[in-house]
């Protein structure tokens, strides 16, 4: 077939932010399917809750302090996260480094707190179906927390190497976006795990 050139796109940029970029949609899709995973896990919890006459089964509700502390830190972490977003958009390498390190530290603190939370669930996974589903849900969220922390650390390291190219800033904003998801996903889980058993 003959070709006729109708347009030249040579002037277009080679990377973009947000919905312009491919990876943003990738992150969005993964969040959607992982969000669905959380929804299903919540559904399983509520199903077991509905079919069992007592809840929690043979255990006290989880101690409140670890989950509550996490929730507060999660919510506050949105602020440095947004700063990271802003400096990445401005392509300010120096500040991006700083904020990525801050976010990594926050992630580490949360992961440690998460350890305490497991210890203070007041049930083991093999005690009852209640224990099982609580461990499943908390484990699921911890996987997300750990994955995002890993991603943040790798990005932070990258930014200190020669690979700190402009398109990496777009990766940073996607990571920011994903962190918001980890935070938002946590809120209903906090209510579910820590408060529903106290109803």
């Amino acid at each position, binding site marked *: 077939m003959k070709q006729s*050139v109708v*347009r030249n*796109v040579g002037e277009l940029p080679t990377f973009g932010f947000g919905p312009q970029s491919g990876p943003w949609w990738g992150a969005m899709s993964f969040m959607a399917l*992982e969000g*669905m995973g959380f929804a299903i896990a919540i559904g399983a919890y509520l199903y077991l809750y509905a*079919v069992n006459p007592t809840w929690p089964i043979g255990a006290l509700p989880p101690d409140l302090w670890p989950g509550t502390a996490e929730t507060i830190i999660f919510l506050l972490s949105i602020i440095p996260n947004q700063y990271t977003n802003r400096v990445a958009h401005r392509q300010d390498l120096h500040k991006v480094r700083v904020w990525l390190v801050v976010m990594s530290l926050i992630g580490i603190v949360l992961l440690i707190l998460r350890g305490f939370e497991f210890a203070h669930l007041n049930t083991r996974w093999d005690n009852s179906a209640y224990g099982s589903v609580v461990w499943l849900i908390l484990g699921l969220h911890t996987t997300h927390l750990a994955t995002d922390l890993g991603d943040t650390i790798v990005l932070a390291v990258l930014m200190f190497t020669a690979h700190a190219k402009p398109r990496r800033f777009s990766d940073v904003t996607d990571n920011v976006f994903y962190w918001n998801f980890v935070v938002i996903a946590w809120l209903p889980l906090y209510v579910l795990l820590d408060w529903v058993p106290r109803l």
Partner: protein
Amino acid sequence: MAAEQREIRDDALDGSQLAARLESIWRTPSGLIGTLMSVDHKIIGRRYIVTAFAFLFLGGMLAILMRIQLAGAEQRLLSPDLYNQVFTMHGSTMMFLFAVPVMEAFAVYLVPLMVGTRNIAFPRLNAFSYWMFLFGGCFLWISFAFNVGPDVGWFAYTPLSSLQFTPSKRADVWAQMITFTEVAALAVAVEIIVTVFKQRAPGMTLDRIPLFVWAMLVTAFLIMFAMPSIMIASTSLILDRLVSTRFYDPSSGGNVLLWQHLFWFFGHPEVYIIFIPATGMASMILATFARRPVIGYPVIVLSLIATGFLSFGLWVHHMFVTGLPQLGAGLFTASSMLIAVPSGLQIFCWIATLWDGRPVYRTPLLFVLGFIVIFVIGGLSGVMVASVPIDTQVHDTYFVVAHFHYVLIGGAVFPLIGAVYYWFPKICGRMLSERLGHWNFWLAFCGFNIAFFPMHILGLMGMPRRVYTYTPEMGWDRLNLLSSVGAAIFALSFAVLLANAIYSLRKGTLAHDNPWGASTLEWATASPPPPQNFDRIPAVTHRDPLWADSNTLPVIAGLSAERREVLLTSLAEAEPQIREASPEPSIWPLLTAIATTIFFIGSIFTPWAVMWGTPPMAITLIGWFWPTGSKEDEE
């Protein structure tokens, strides 16, 4: 900026010079390692298709074994224990290793070509997906060879699949195979969504997207929202079995019906994950051979979307005999009937297209016609079992076996074989033989009906499914023999397909770019397409671009001729936005898949695998995403 000025773009070159240059950038490295590094969607798509068909043949062999066993009363070919494994392996292989993957495989190959781009979104994820699929499938079959093939049915109901009743590793193998294939499927779903959203050729607005691409987009969303449910299900099952969680243990507050809810919340959409792509194939084939655009494009798109939504509201109809509250049963009956409406609308659109067109009865069209006939019969028996009183009668009988083979084989395998005949020339550069194609079709059509129609009657006569034999007094032997003869004929039709493919690969007529005179972009490039797919990205001004102007193709210039670059466009209007780098070949996806495989299989044997299995996965993932400082990273 200076560097950019020096970069050679595709507007500075032309013709064979441009083609050669792009080819050297986009080609897969040679040699064994090179092959394993490939991120070309066509190479991976081809592997995916071939592997899925290999599993079809394996699953088909098991089907033949079952049919030999059942051909007469009290046969002794398969022991009861082996029969349990065989039907479970058959069902699981067909559903998880053939039907879903093969549809995704075609999408991996075709969607980028149809939307006019150079590679799928996230090509390395695509490679990873293939390896996961391959390893998961091999894992299942190797386990079977060692007599640890799952034997709990393709939906592995608890409590049968719990440790107490299946103390061997068989159910673990099933659950982990699920994890493998779902990871693979979810990866492809994400790739397809992003490819369709962001990599459509400029001008391909939402109402110009080819129907197969629409179908795959809807399917990708179904996968995205259905598969997490089965992931949670299989994970909780394996946790119950390995670390004594209590999800399905009624003595500790667990509930076995939870399994059925989780399974069928995925399982019903699963049927549409298989069926919707097939309707997309049918629409494309019909348009080409009826020689006119499909009538009712918006109706078809809307009914695809409606089917997608409705398919999530039906799962409980698989549980009618578990004693549902009346209202619930009524609601799910109604919704199950309702879903016949969009499917019916599509069928009317197809019939109208044929009516108004000038149909050319080549093999692909024959298969689509066969599909319509068989699927309508399957749909009728489906509407029957959607009503609670009938379902209560025929539940777990051969009536159900007949029904779901009519919808699965009629609704997916027939259009799929049509698709093989239709796209073979594009993928392999040669036409399949028409003469063998006609044989193939008629053997398949007759064989299929002879094999499966009698099963309806057997079911009504009371023959339960999943029985390894029956006694002569039941009076089921004649119909069973008939069914087995039909199955043999049906199997023969696949032998013809295989022979045709092998023969035509060497001796078939050479195919030019557009041998069928079709209208969509995959036919605007060579057969088989070069590594870069298109020398220049097409610009779309029409829903049927190659029919709008069959001599000249409007194209876009300005992409790099020095490194891999794809054009990203806006979601709705497909306006060009970004020239984005596309990943180079890499061995890391394979290494990541190997690490993940060790993790998954190891965790069947010891929970500690989660500990020692994670670091290798993390390392390979970092290797995967770590920029190599090569072309893709320059900026």
